[in-house]
C-alpha cells in the first residue's frame, strides 16, 4: 500500500533541509555519473563502447555491473 501523504511529507522535509550548495553538489555528482553512463552514445568512441565490445566478445551476461573509481569519483557501467 502506497502511503501518499507520508511520502509527500518526507519529500518536503528532505528538500527543506537541503542548502543550495548541498543540492547543487548532489546534482553535479549525478551529472558526472550520467555523462559517464552516456559515453558511447555520441559520435565519439569512448570507454563504454570499448567496455561494451569487451563484454560482447567475452560473452559477458548483459546487465552485469562494473563499478570503479577515478580519483575521488565512483563510476558504474552496465554491461
Amino acid at each position, binding site marked *: *500500500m*502506497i*502511503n*501518499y501523504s*507520508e*511520502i*509527500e511529507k*518526507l*519529500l*518536503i522535509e*528532505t*528538500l527543506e533541509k*537541503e*542548502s*543550495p550548495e548541498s*543540492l*547543487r553538489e*548532489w*546534482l553535479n555528482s*549525478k551529472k558526472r*555519473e*550520467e555523462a559517464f*553512463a*552516456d559515453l558511447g*552514445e555520441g559520435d565519439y568512441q569512448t570507454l563504454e563502447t570499448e567496455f*561494451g*565490445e569487451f563484454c*560482447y566478445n567475452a*560473452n559477458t*551476461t*548483459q*546487465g552485469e*555491473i562494473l563499478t570503479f573509481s577515478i580519483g575521488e569519483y565512483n563510476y*558504474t*557501467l*552496465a554491461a
Partner: protein
Amino acid sequence: MNRTFYQTLEKRKIRANFAGYCLRTSAWLGSGYYFWSDELDAMRWGQDAEYRSKHYEIYKSEILFDDVLNTVFNEQDYNFYVKIIEIAAEYFIKKINERPSIKLINDYMREHGIYQNIVGVLFQDLPTSKSYSLVQNLFYKKRIQLCVYNKNIILSFNYHLDGECLHD
C-alpha cells in the same frame, strides 16, 4: 497481483539470465530495469536499436505489481506522481535555479529513501508515429513502460523471441 512485461536486449552469444539494468540519461524514470507493457513496443525498440550484433532478443517477465506506482491507469497514483514531481521540481528551481529532469527527480527520491515501498513506476508517452495510429490527426495509443527499482519483484525472466535490427 502479477503482470507480464517484456524487455528488449541485444542478441549476444549467450542468453541473458536476468533483466538488463539501465543507467543512461535517456532512462527517463531513473536508473532501473526497464520493461515494455506491450510486446509490439518491445519489438519496435529492438528493430530501431543500433546493436553491435544487429539482432535483438525479447525476454518475458512476470512482475509482482502490488507496490508499483501505476500512473497510467490509476488516477490516484497519477495525481500523486504529478504532485510529487512538481513539488521536487519547484524546490530545485527555487534553491538552485535549475529545472531538473524526471530522471534526476526519481534518482533523488530513491537515493534519499523517499519512495519507501514504491518498487517501480508505470509510465507512458504518446508516440506520434503513423505506425501507432489508424485514424487521422490523433495519436491515441499509449506506449507504456515500467521501470523496476527493486529487482525482487522480477519473478521470472525468460527468452521469448528474437529479431533483426532494421537499420543499416
